[in-house]
C-alpha cells in the first residue's frame, strides 16, 4: 500500500494526487474561513494554530527523537517574553524579533539537551520539568520582565518602523492570516526536516541510540539539535501566542501547560506531523471551547449541573475539563497507543482493501 520504490518517492511532499487535492482543499477552506465564521471561532482557531506549531515541534523531539520533555512551557514563555521585549524595548521589527526570540529559545533548548545526553526516561522527564518551572520562576522574579504582574504586548506591526513602512495588524482576522501563513511554513519545514539526513538520524536515535551511534550518528550533535529545533518551534509559537492574548504573566506558562502540550502530541500520534496537527486541534478545541461550556451542551449539560448541585459544587464544574482530559490521556494509552493517527491508519487500511 505505502510501498516506496525509490528515494524520490520518499522525499516528495505530496505522496499522490489525492493527498495534493485534499491538502489544497483544506488550505482553501482555511484561507476563506474568516468570511463566514463568527469572530469567536477565529480567536479559537488562532490559539489552535499556535498549539499546532508547538505540537509539531514537540513531536520532533518526543515522537521522532524519543526524548521526553515536560518543560516546553518554558520555551513557549521564552518566545513570548523575548518577542514582546525585543519589540517594545528595542523597537525591533516583528519578524526579526520573533526569529531572534525563537533562536534564544533554541539556545536554551541546546542547554537542556546537554544533560539529556546522559539522562533517559523518567530522569529526563524530571530534569525538563524542573527546567520549565525554573524559567517560570526566573521570569516571575525579575523586574525586567514585569515580574508577577505580567506583561502587555506592544501593538503588532509587520512593517519596519525604522524605514517608515508600517503594516499594522489589529483585529483577530488579520492575526489569523499572519498565523496561518507562519503555521503552514513551519509545518512544511517540519515535514522536510524529517525527510532529510537529520530527520533520519533523529529516528535512528529513537529506535536505539547505541545502534545509531555505531552506524555513525553523532549523538551529541543530533540529540542537542533535536532539542534546539523543538525549542525553536516552541519559541515561534510563544511569540505568536503573546500577541493573541495581548497580556500574559509567568503563571500562564505553568506545568499544566507543559502537560497539555505533551498530551496533544500523544493524543495525535507520536512521530507523525499530521498526528500532532490533529491532536493539537482536538485538545485545544476540547479545552478552550467544549469542556469550558459543558453546562450548555444539550441534555448532558443539564445532567452535569444536576450532579454538581447534588454532590459537588456548581462553581467547580469548570474543573470537569481537567478530569475529562485526564481520562482521555489514560484512554488513549490503553486503547490506542498510536493516537488519532493510528485510528486514521486503520481506517485507511480498512477501506483501501475493502472487500477483503
Amino acid at each position: 500500500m505505502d510501498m516506496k520504490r525509490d528515494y524520490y518517492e520518499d522525499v516528495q511532499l505530496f505522496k499522490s494526487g489525492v493527498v495534493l487535492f485534499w491538502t489544497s482543499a483544506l488550505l482553501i477552506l482555511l484561507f476563506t474561513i474568516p468570511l463566514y465564521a463568527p469572530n469567536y471561532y477565529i480567536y479559537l482557531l488562532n490559539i489552535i494554530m499556535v498549539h499546532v506549531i508547538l505540537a509539531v515541534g514537540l513531536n520532533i523531539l518526543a515522537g521522532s527523537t524519543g526524548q521526553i520533555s515536560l518543560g516546553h512551557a518554558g520555551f513557549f514563555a521564552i518566545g513570548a517574553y523575548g518577542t514582546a521585549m525585543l519589540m517594545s524595548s528595542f523597537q525591533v521589527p516583528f519578524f526579526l524579533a520573533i526569529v531572534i526570540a525563537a533562536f534564544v529559545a533554541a539556545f536554551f533548548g541546546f542547554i537542556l539537551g546537554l544533560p539529556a545526553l546522559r539522562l533517559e526516561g523518567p530522569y529526563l522527564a524530571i530534569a525538563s520539568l524542573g527546567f520549565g518551572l525554573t524559567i517560570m520562576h526566573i521570569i516571575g522574579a525579575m523586574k525586567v520582565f514585569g515580574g508577577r504582574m505580567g506583561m502587555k504586548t506592544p501593538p503588532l506591526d509587520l512593517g519596519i518602523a525604522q524605514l517608515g513602512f508600517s503594516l499594522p495588524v489589529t483585529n483577530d482576522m488579520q492575526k489569523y492570516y499572519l498565523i496561518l501563513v507562519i503555521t503552514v511554513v513551519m509545518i512544511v519545514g517540519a515535514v522536510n526536516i524529517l525527510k532529510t539526513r537529520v530527520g533520519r538520524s533523529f529516528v535512528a536515535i529513537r529506535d536505539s541510540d547505541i545502534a545509531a551511534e555505531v552506524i555513525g550518528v553523532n549523538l551529541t550533535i543530533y540529540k542537542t539539535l533535536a532539542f534546539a529545533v523543538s525549542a525553536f518551534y516552541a519559541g515561534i509559537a510563544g511569540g505568536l501566542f503573546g500577541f493573541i492574548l495581548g497580556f500574559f504573566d509567568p503563571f500562564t506558562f505553568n506545568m499544566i501547560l507543559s502537560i497539555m502540550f505533551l498530551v496533544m502530541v500523544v493524543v495525535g500520534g507520536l512521530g507523525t506531523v499530521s498526528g500532532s496537527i490533529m491532536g493539537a486541534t482536538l485538545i485545544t478545541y476540547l479545552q478552550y471551547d467544549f469542556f469550558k461550556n459543558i453546562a450548555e451542551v444539550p441534555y448532558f449539560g443539564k445532567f452535569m449541573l444536576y450532579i454538581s448541585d447534588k454532590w459537588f459544587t456548581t462553581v467547580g464544574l469548570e474543573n470537569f475539563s481537567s478530569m475529562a482530559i485526564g481520562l482521555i490521556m489514560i484512554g488513549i494509552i490503553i486503547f490506542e497507543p498510536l493516537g488519532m493517527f493510528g485510528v486514521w491508519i486503520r481506517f485507511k487500511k480498512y477501506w483501501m482493501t475493502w472487500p477483503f
Partner: protein
Amino acid sequence: MPFGQLFVEGLAIGACYGLFATAVVIIYKTSAVVNFAQGEMAMFSTFVAFHILNFYGYPFWAAFLITMLFSVFMGVLIEFLFLRPAKHPTILGMIVITLGAEMFLMGLASWKWGAEQQFFALPINPSVTYEPIKGMIVNNWSISVLAVTSFIMLFLFLFFKYTRLGTAMRATQQNKNAAKIMGIRTERVFSFAWGFSSLIGAVAGMFFASRATLDPAFMMEPFLRTFAAAVLGGLMSIPGVIIGGGLMGLIENYFGYVWPEWKPIIAFVVIVLVLCVRPSGLFAKHYIKKV
C-alpha cells in the same frame, strides 16, 4: 536565624520529603513507573480526611483510620483501572497515564471541594516547643514528623527484609518475568505496592497540609521537591531517598535563608547538577544498557 535552628527545621521538612519520596520509590521499585499522580493522590486522601472531620464530625483518629483505608483502596483502584489494562506501554506512555490520573484527581477534588484554601489541623499543637540545646527550638510538628518517618522506615526495613510479601516485591523489582516463573503473582504485588505507597503518601500529605493550607493544588510544590529528593537519592533505594530528603530539606532551608527569592527553584538546580554528574542519582548503581 541561627545555624542550629535552620538545621532542625531543614531536617524536619526533609524527613517529610523523605517520607513522601518513599511512596514514590515503592512504586518505582516494584513496577518501574514514575508516579506523577502521587501528589494528587495524597491531596485527595487529605481532602477525604478533611471532609470526614468537618462534615461528619468524627474524632481525628477515626477519620485517620478511614482515610488510611480509603487511600489504600484508591491506590489499588488506580493501578487496577489505569495501569493494568495498558499493554506493554513505553516509558512515555506510563508517564502520560500517571499525568492523566493526576489531572483527573485534581479536577475531581476541585469539583467537589472548590479551589478555596481550607484549614487542616493535626491533633498536635505546633506552638508547643522544646529547647533541648540552646539555640535549637523544636516544635511538636517536627518531632511528630521525625517520629512517624523513623517508625515507617523501621517498618519498611523489616517488611522488605523478613516478610514473604516484601521478598516477593523485591523479586518482582529485580526481574518481573523470573518472579512470575517462581510463582509470584506479580500483578497482585503491584496492587500492594500502589496501595502501600498511597497510604504513606496520605500520611505525608496530612503533615504537609497541617503545615500550610489545604487546597487542590497544595501538593504540587511539595511533590516536586520530593521528586527532587527522590532523584537525589536515586529513585531506587529507600535509605538513599531518606538521605536525599534530608539533604534536600537542609539545602533548601539554608539557601532559602540566604536568598529567599530563589528558594522555589533551588530544588531543580540541585537535581540537574546531580544528574549531570551521576545520571541515576547519588545512591543508585548506574547500569549501562545492553544492546
